[in-house]
């Protein structure tokens, strides 16, 4: 069963085609790593999947609830950690937002500072709060844009354990990343984008784990 499908998706920004007929199918319960150089169209495709942008042409189908972790942490500086998560729980239609917020804070190790304002948090704590926010409603599909970028060690460990648990629980994960080693620890499938096109999709294989550059050499555009 497909969790996410993109068919001949085009996206123009002015005259510039960020996506040029991209096709992608992601099976439910799999973890897809979107790879590609800067400007390949990874973020644009993820934003379309998240409903933040409409494709200029083509069709996108999403089967299930979505959690999104983008470049920004997506939390309010002038609300406490608990208030932030309760708010997002309400927006997501969670049955008991306060209970869900407490559980999410527990998962990311922020229970002790639940009443502290987000603006008073260290960078690592803010990132963990963002991770808690994205996982709060236990979404069917997790969309992560460069999730490991600028995370501290603790936040990376928290994120990886949450992603493993989500995958084990049947969630689908799509993440764009340049950090192939961290991504390959979780990815079951890989999609390679080049200049707005998906040039390769397939299961992860041993060569990718042993040598992350192998993907770019094999499927990437020769520079």
């Amino acid at each position, binding site marked *: 069963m497909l969790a996410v499908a993109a068919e001949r998706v085009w996206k123009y920004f002015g005259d510039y085609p960020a996506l040029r007929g991209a096709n992608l199918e992601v099976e439910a319960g799999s973890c897809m790593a979107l790879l590609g150089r800067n400007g390949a169209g990874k973020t644009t495709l993820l934003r379309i999947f998240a409903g933040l942008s409409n494709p200029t042409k083509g069709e996108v189908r999403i089967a299930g609830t979505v959690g999104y972790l983008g470049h*920004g942490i997506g939390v309010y500086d*002038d609300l406490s950690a608990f*208030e932030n998560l309760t708010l*997002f729980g309400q927006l997501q239609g969670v049955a008991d937002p306060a209970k869900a917020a407490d559980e999410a804070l527990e998962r990311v190790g922020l229970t002790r500072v639940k009443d502290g304002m987000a603006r008073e948090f260290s960078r690592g704590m803010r990132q963990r709060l963002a991770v808690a926010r994205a996982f709060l409603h236990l979404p069917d599909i997790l969309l992560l844009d460069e999730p490991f970028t600028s995370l501290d060690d603790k936040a990376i460990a928290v994120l990886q354990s949450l992603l493993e648990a989500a995958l084990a629980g049947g969630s689908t994960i799509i993440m764009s990343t340049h950090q192939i080693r961290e991504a390959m620890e979780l990815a079951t499938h890989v999609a390679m984008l080049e200049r707005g096109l998906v040039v390769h999709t397939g299961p992860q294989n041993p060569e990718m784990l042993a040598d992350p550059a192998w993907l770019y050499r094999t499927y990437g555009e020769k520079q």
Partner: protein
Amino acid sequence: MTHGFRTAYAIARKDLRTELRTKESLNAAASFAVVILVLFSFAFPLERDEFYAISGGLLWLVYSFAGALIVNRGFARELPNDCLDVLIASRAPGWAIFLGKAVAAFLLLLIVEFICLPVFGLFYNIRWTDSFGSLVLVIVLATWGITVVGTAFSAVTVNVRVRELMLPVLLYPMIIPLLIGAMEATTVLLSGEAMAGDNLYSLQLLVVFDVIYTALALYLIDYVLVV
């Protein structure tokens, strides 16, 4: 639908909570409005009766200036940390996000307006308490019109680099009919006339404006937020 109204309530509560903590736009709008009222009282040395004739115009000019300051923060409040993306990516319907923001801006602008009323009465020697009930009705109707149009344009201009300049340029021409109605109704009430007969037209104009622009904004907001 129920989820939508719950979402609108959560967004309005969040906006009010953050604004009352930071007082970013509330302090600016209230102090600006009071200063303008005081300055106008010295700039136009009119007789008491003449003040009554222009009272509605004066009051609504000040309220509309303060309104632009309040609604400007509406969607701009979501820019730090890319919170707008998270709002849109959540299950929250666009109309509910808009409604929550409009309600929060409406209540904030009402606070500013009711702070201004005693100052207005004091500096212009105008009795505004005689027709308080009707005046509140006019203020509520016109303030909702300003905030609904202003919040819609706040969404339109949220990603524009010069949004603080763009918003008033778009807002004021659009709310001219509303301001005319509000000014006329307020002048009638402050002059001690009854809100009946021909005087009711301005009130009807406010109601029609509110209904049309609220419906339009709620319907079109998804096209503004997701492009």
